[in-house]
């Protein structure tokens, strides 16, 4: 089992390196084969066969990218099934690295949680890789792009399956650097490279806290092993556990784009759309939530940290949803909705439902990957990311339209789709925490123990309001993009099959994943809360529909009026950071540069200049005339003799 998990992690990792180094070599090797295939298939359905033979077998990087991920998907599916049939933790350690202090083990740890998340990661990554083959077909750097996606997936799988905090951190950091490379794929564009640097720096800021959180917990437990740390968590001192979990939350906020550190995510839209799908659905942002879920017993020992998480979640949830409402760029709508949905998960964790949060993570992984890949189809067809350029795409792109309808329904939380069930679980748990009663199962009540009731109220109320806003922006985006007048060029066509089918395939889990929750006590929706949240959702979606219906040519968001620019800028958080952080840092940097030039450099150059000057003085005597030298010698001798005579 552990071997399977290790192979699942290593396959994309190897694929990344092979693709990076030998991608084009493989293409060259395969070209004769492709030619033969083309010759061999002159008969039936010649056009398609030829097209396939021309594209696929000769595309080495694509093969290297897709096949290992597919194998990893199969492996993780096997692991997940085995875990489902026989739920117990399976651990394996390759080696224990002695560090002189607390040793750490290179090992994997598979339990139900990690198995199911790993499967989700692989499925989304596979969909993204297949989609990218078509989406990035004409990109000259497709090879490195696909390799980085493989590396990204491998890093995320390492985070998911790792059995040791430091190994987890390795995966965590590799993801950070991969996100930098992928967001900055179009680096020749200034804005893109700046967005990549921003994403890297902001997540890095959180990662510093994360690393120190790992140290605090690891030192507290005298081990970095995940299970040992969790076993020691209840016995650690209050300070240790609160400090450790709060520091971990820094990293979580950075990676999962929660309130103080969320600003990188909307800018990260500068990267290619499949990368956004991967980052938003499966890998990067899910990692933060996943780590909290993985270390959940430690967080339960520190209810204060969970309360902080709840506050962060509430701010991010509502703020990002409001910002999403006003965006004009389809990808930025989805980016803000990601922040908002991740905040739902964080809120779920804050009120004590790990399973609910993970349920939402899986559902979100499915529908957000779907939405982003669908958005990619739309963007390719329309040639612009602006919502203003879309409209009336329903007829031209039926597959994309229906798939994205399912995605938007899941995002808004409409009943048959997955988002409804998962969101409802979180809200129900928030209600229980607010009430502090064990209405649900004993496990739920026991889990919620110690979390302050106000956290429950906060998450519940903000969650319900956010549900309204979410429904509003989902409806608005859906209506503006697919209904109304056509504002796009007339020759809009459905995306190619390699892009269309992953989107359609992802629509299935986005729709039906919610029903899996019916089998579990924690995850079954409670009728009361379901009705209430549905009312809120209908209020939001219906309101927007009514506004739109009055004048379908116009964007319903115009009703926001004067608030709209503020929301469009995401509450001007970037401007605030610009004043509070960026400018002081730049001023400090300039000061350092000046100090370097004026003090350090000046000292060094001054020493050199002084030595030269002194040498110049001595050089005067060396005029090449030996008689002068001898005169000097004689004068020296006379002086010495005189000194000896006088002094003795």
């Amino acid at each position: 089992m552990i071997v399977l998990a290790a192979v699942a992690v290593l396959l994309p990792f190897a694929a990344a390196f092979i693709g990076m180094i030998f991608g084009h070599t493989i293409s060259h090797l395969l070209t004769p084969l492709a030619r033969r295939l083309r010759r061999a298939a002159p008969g039936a359905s010649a056009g398609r066969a030829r097209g396939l033979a021309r594209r696929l077998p000769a595309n080495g990087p694509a093969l290297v990218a897709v096949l290992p991920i597919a194998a990893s998907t199969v492996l993780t599916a096997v692991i997940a099934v085995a875990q489902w049939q026989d739920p117990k933790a399976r651990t394996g350690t390759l080696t224990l690295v002695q560090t002189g202090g607390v040793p750490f083990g290179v090992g994997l740890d598979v339990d139900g949680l990690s198995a199911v998340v790993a499967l989700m990661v692989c499925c989304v990554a596979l969909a993204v890789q297949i989609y990218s083959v078509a989406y990035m077909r004409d990109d000259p750097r497709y090879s490195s792009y696909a390799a980085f996606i493989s590396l990204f997936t491998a890093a995320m799988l390492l985070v998911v399956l790792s059995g040791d905090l430091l190994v987890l951190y390795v995966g965590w950091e590799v993801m950070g650097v991969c996100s930098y490379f992928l967001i900055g794929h179009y680096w020749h564009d200034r804005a893109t490279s700046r967005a990549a640097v921003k994403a890297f720096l902001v997540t890095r800021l959180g990662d510093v806290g994360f690393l120190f959180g790992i140290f605090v917990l690891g030192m507290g437990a005298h081990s970095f092993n995940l299970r040992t740390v969790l076993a020691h968590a209840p016995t650690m001192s209050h300070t240790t556990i609160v400090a450790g979990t709060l520091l971990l939350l820094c990293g979580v906020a950075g990676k999962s784009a929660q309130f103080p550190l969320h600003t990188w995510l909307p800018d990260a839209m500068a990267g290619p759309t499949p990368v956004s799908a991967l980052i938003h659905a499966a890998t990067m942002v899910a990692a933060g939530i996943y780590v909290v879920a993985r270390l959940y017993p430690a967080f339960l020992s520190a209810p204060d940290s969970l309360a902080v998480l709840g506050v962060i979640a509430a701010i991010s949830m509502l703020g990002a949803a409001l910002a999403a409402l006003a965006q004009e760029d389809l990808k930025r709508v989805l980016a803000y909705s990601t922040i908002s949905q991740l905040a739902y998960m964080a809120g779920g964790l804050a009120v004590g439902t790990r399973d609910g949060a993970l349920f939402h993570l899986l559902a979100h992984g499915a529908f957000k990957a779907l939405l982003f890949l669908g958005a990619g189809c739309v963007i390719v067809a329309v040639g612009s990311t602006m919502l203003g350029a879309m409209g009336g795409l329903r007829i031209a792109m039926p597959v994309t339209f229906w798939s994205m309808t399912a995605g938007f329904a899941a995002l808004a939380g409409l009943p048959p789709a997955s988002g409804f069930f998962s969101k409802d679980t979180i809200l129900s748990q928030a209600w229980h925490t607010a009430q502090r009663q064990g209405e649900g199962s004993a496990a739920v009540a026991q889990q919620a123990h110690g979390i302050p009731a106000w956290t429950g109220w906060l998450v519940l109320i903000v969650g319900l309001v956010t549900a309204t806003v979410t429904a509003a922006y989902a409806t608005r985006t859906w209506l503006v993009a697919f209904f109304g007048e056509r504002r796009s060029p007339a020759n809009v066509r459905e995306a190619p099959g390699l892009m269309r089918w992953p989107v359609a395939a992802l629509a299935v889990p986005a729709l039906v994943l919610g029903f899996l929750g019916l089998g579990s006590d924690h995850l079954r929706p409670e009728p009361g809360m379901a009705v209430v949240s549905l009312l809120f959702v209908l209020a939001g979606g219906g309101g927007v529909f009514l506004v739109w219906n009055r004048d379908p040519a116009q964007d319903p968001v115009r009703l926001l009026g004067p608030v709209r620019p503020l929301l469009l800028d995401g509450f001007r958080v970037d401007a605030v950071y610009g004043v509070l952080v960026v400018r002081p840092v730049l001023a400090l940097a300039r000061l350092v540069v000046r100090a370097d030039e004026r003090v350090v450099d000046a000292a060094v150059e001054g020493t050199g200049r002084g030595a030269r000057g002194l040498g110049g003085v001595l050089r005067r005597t060396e005029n090449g005339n030996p008689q002068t030298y001898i005169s000097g010698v004689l004068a020296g001798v006379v002086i010495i003799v005189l000194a000896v005579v006088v002094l003795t």
Partner: protein
Amino acid sequence: MHLIYPVVIAALLFSVGVYGVLARRNAILVLMSVELMLNAVNLNLVVFDMRWADRLHGGQVLTLFVIVLAAAEVGLGLALVLLIYRNRRTVDVDRLRTLGEHEQEGARQ
């Protein structure tokens, strides 16, 4: 004979040599001045050898050594001067400033 005469003569000889070495511009005369200085030393060696009545006559032996060395030195020195003259058509030590930093300017002046 009082010791003062040969010592004064030796001192005078040495001074003449020093003056010649420092002031003459002709390299051959500089060599000759060196010889004067050596012979002043020789004179001193012989005089003090007699004065102290050294049984081994170390002073006189040393004088013989110095004479031999001086002969060799003059041979070598004259050979150098000859070569310099052949190359540069001059034996003026003031103009032989190749070792100086501003050899070009020195040569031009």
